[in-house]
C-alpha cells in the first residue's frame, strides 16, 4: 500500500474503474518504445528498417541518437516524432499509445507532444518569424491574442525579440534555427526532437545552438537529438547508437 500514497485520493477514484490490464500496460516513462519494427515493401522484397527496438526516455533527459546513414535512425526519428507509425510494436508518448493512431490523431500528438527542429529549419518562407512560431498554436486552435503573446515569449526565450517581423530570408542560419526552436517550444511539447540541428550551420553557430539546447535542458525540457556527428552526440547525457536497425549501445554519459 505504500505506493498508493503517491496518488491523491481523487486520482485513485478517477482511475478505480479502469480495467487492470490497460492500466498495467501504460508505461511510466515519457517515451516508451517496445519491440518496434518498421518494414518497408521494396518491390517484392521486405526491408526491415528497424528490428525490434526497445527503449525508454524519462522526462528531463537529454538524449542523442547516433548512427551512420542507413542505420535506421531517420526511421526511428520519424516514429518518435509521430510522423509515421511502426509496422509492429508499441510506442507510448506521455501515456498515449501512438502506434494505433490514425493520421488526424497523429497530427494532434505532433501538435501537442512533439517540437521538431530540422536540419534545414523548415520555416515557411513567406511568413515572419512571429507567424512561423504561431503556426503550431494556430493548429491547436488558440485565439490570436493569446497566440501572439505565447509566440513572442517563445521568440524572447531564444533571444529573437528584435527579429519577430523578419522573414526567414532576412535571417542568418543560426537565427533561422532559433526561430525553429522557438516554434518547437511554443506549444510546451513533451519532447524537443532535433534532427541534425547543426547540419546546415557553421562551427561557431553550431556551438551557439548546442549551448541553447543545454540551456533548454537545464530549464527542464526533454531533448532528443538525432545526429551522425559524435561531438554533437557527446553534448547529450545519454547516447543511443543505432546500427542496422537495432540498438547497438545505450550509454549514459552524465
Amino acid at each position: 500500500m505504500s505506493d498508493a500514497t503517491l496518488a491523491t485520493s481523487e486520482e485513485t477514484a478517477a482511475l478505480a474503474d479502469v480495467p487492470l490490464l490497460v492500466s498495467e500496460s501504460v508505461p511510466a516513462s515519457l517515451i516508451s518504445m517496445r519491440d518496434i519494427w518498421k518494414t518497408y515493401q521494396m518491390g517484392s522484397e521486405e526491408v526491415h528498417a528497424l528490428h525490434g527496438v526497445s527503449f525508454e526516455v524519462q522526462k528531463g533527459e537529454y538524449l542523442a541518437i547516433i548512427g551512420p546513414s542507413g542505420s535506421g535512425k531517420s526511421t526511428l526519428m520519424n516514429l518518435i516524432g509521430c510522423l509515421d507509425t511502426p509496422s509492429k510494436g508499441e510506442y507510448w508518448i506521455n501515456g498515449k499509445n501512438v502506434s494505433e493512431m490514425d493520421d488526424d490523431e497523429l497530427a494532434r500528438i505532433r501538435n501537442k507532444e512533439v517540437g521538431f527542429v530540422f536540419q534545414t529549419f523548415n520555416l515557411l518562407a513567406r511568413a515572419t518569424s512571429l507567424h512561423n512560431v504561431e503556426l503550431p498554436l494556430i493548429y491547436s486552435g488558440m485565439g490570436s491574442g493569446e497566440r501572439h503573446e505565447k509566440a513572442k515569449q517563445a521568440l524572447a526565450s531564444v533571444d529573437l525579440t528584435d527579429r519577430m517581423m523578419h522573414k526567414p530570408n532576412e535571417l542568418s542560419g543560426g537565427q533561422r534555427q532559433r526561430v525553429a526552436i522557438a516554434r518547437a517550444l511554443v506549444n510546451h511539447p513533451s519532447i524537443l526532437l532535433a534532427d541534425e540541428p547543426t547540419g546546415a550551420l557553421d562551427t561557431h553557430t553550431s556551438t551557439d545552438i548546442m549551448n541553447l539546447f543545454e540551456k533548454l535542458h537545464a530549464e527542464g525540457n526533454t531533448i532528443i537529438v538525432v545526429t551522425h556527428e559524435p561531438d554533437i552526440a557527446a553534448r547529450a547525457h545519454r547516447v543511443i547508437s543505432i546500427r542496422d536497425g537495432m540498438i547497438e549501445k545505450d550509454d549514459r554519459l552524465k
Partner: protein
Amino acid sequence: MQAEDTADGDAKTLKLPGTRSDSAEPHPTSSPQSTKTKPPSRRRSLAGSALWESFRVAISSLRANKLRAGLTLIGIIVGVSAVIAVVTIIKGLDQTVASTFSSQGSTVFSISKRPQIITSREDFLRFNKRKDVTDEDWDAIARLCTSCWRTGLTANVPRETVKHGDQKSDEVTIQAITISMFDINAVNLDAGRYFSDSEYAAGREAAVVGPDILENLFGGAPPDSVIGKDVRIAGHAFEIIGVAEKKGKIFGFSRDNLIYIPYTSFERIYGARKSLVVFIQAASAEQLTEVQDQVRAIMRNRRGRTFRDTDDGFALETQDVFLDLYGKATSNIYIVTIGVAAISLVVGGIVVMNIMLVSVTERTREIGIRKAVGARQTDILRQFLIEAVTVTSIGGAIGVLTGFGLAYLISMAMGFPLLLSINSALLGVGVSSLVGIISGLWPAWRAARLHPIDALRAE
C-alpha cells in the same frame, strides 16, 4: 483485495515523471470518455483561427504568384463575364419585346378569322373555311357588348408602294381603321389631327402618316410642313392630315413606316371582300376576362355555335400570343447561348484546377511543415479549398462587373434598356465560387493526403 490491487496498479501509472502542466487532466488512454469529449471542443475553436489562417495563406500565396493568380483570374473572369453579359442582354431584349408588343396594353384583344400565329397546314386550311369577320360583326359587338369600353375595326392591307411626286417608298404598311383605333392603339400625333367623323363617314382620302414617310417621301421635312400635302396609295391621292409620333424599331424593323387611312375609304377602293379584325378594349385589366366572355358569347351566337361546339369559328386573342411565340422561339436559343458562355466558365474551372495542382506540387514542403507542427488533413484540405475559392470568387466579382460593362456597351449599340440585376451578380459570384470548390477539391484532397515524411523530404 481486488480494489486495492487496482489502486496499486494505478498508483504506479501515476508516477509519470513526464507530467507537464497540462497532463494533470485525466489520462486519455485510461479514461475513454475524455478522448471522446476533447476533440469536438478543439475543432470548434479551431474553425475560426484556422479559417482565418487559410484565408491569409490564400491571399499571401496569390500575392506571391501574381502572374499565376492573374492568369487564373482571367480564366474565371472571361467565363463569368460572358455568362453575365449574355444574361443581361437577354433580359434587355425581353424587356424591349415585352414593352413593344404590349403597347396596346393588357386591356385590348382582337377578334379575327384566323389566329395571328398558325403552326400547321391543317390548321391553316381549317381556319380558312371559317366565315370572314366583317364590319357587321363589329357593329353587333359594338351594339351588344355592354361591358366593352372601346371597339374598333382594322383591315390589314397588303404592303403598298406609296408615292409623292417623283418620290416613292416601297413596303409601306397601310392600316385601314375606324377612328376609335387611334385610341385603342394609343397613336399620338406630332402634328395635325385624327380623322374627323365627317371625313370618316364620307370615306374621304385622308391619311395619318408615320414619321418614316416623312423621311422617305419628303426628304425629312418637319411634321408640320407636310400637313395638306398628298400621298398616292394604289393610285389614289390621300391628303395628309396628321403625323404620328415615332415608335422606333424592333429587331431592325421600323414600326413607323405606315399610313393610317379611314376604313370607309379603304372599303371604297378595295371593296369589302377581306376579312377584318375587330379590336375590343376593356376599361381595365380586371374587366378583361368578363369583356372577353361577353364578346365570345356574342360572336359564337353570330356564328351559330352552341356550347357543344369546341371551335369558336373565330380567333379571340390578346397581344400575349406574340410574347408567347417570342418566348417559345427564343428560350432554346437562350439556353444554347448561355450554355456556350458557361463552357468558358468550365474552362476557367479547369484552369483553376491546373494551377492549384501546380501550387500543391510546388508547396509540398510547406504542406509537410504544416503537418509536422500539427495540421490535420482537414486543415490542409480547407486551406487549398479556400485558396481556390478566394481566386474564383474574386474572379467572379470582377467578371460580374466586366459582364455588366459588356452588356452596357452592347445595349448602347443596339438600343435597348440595360437591366442590371443583383440576382445575376450574386449568381455570378456564387457560381464562380462553386467552380472554385469543385476544381479545388481534387488538388486540395491530394495535398491533404500527402504523407508528412514525403512532403518534408520534397524539394
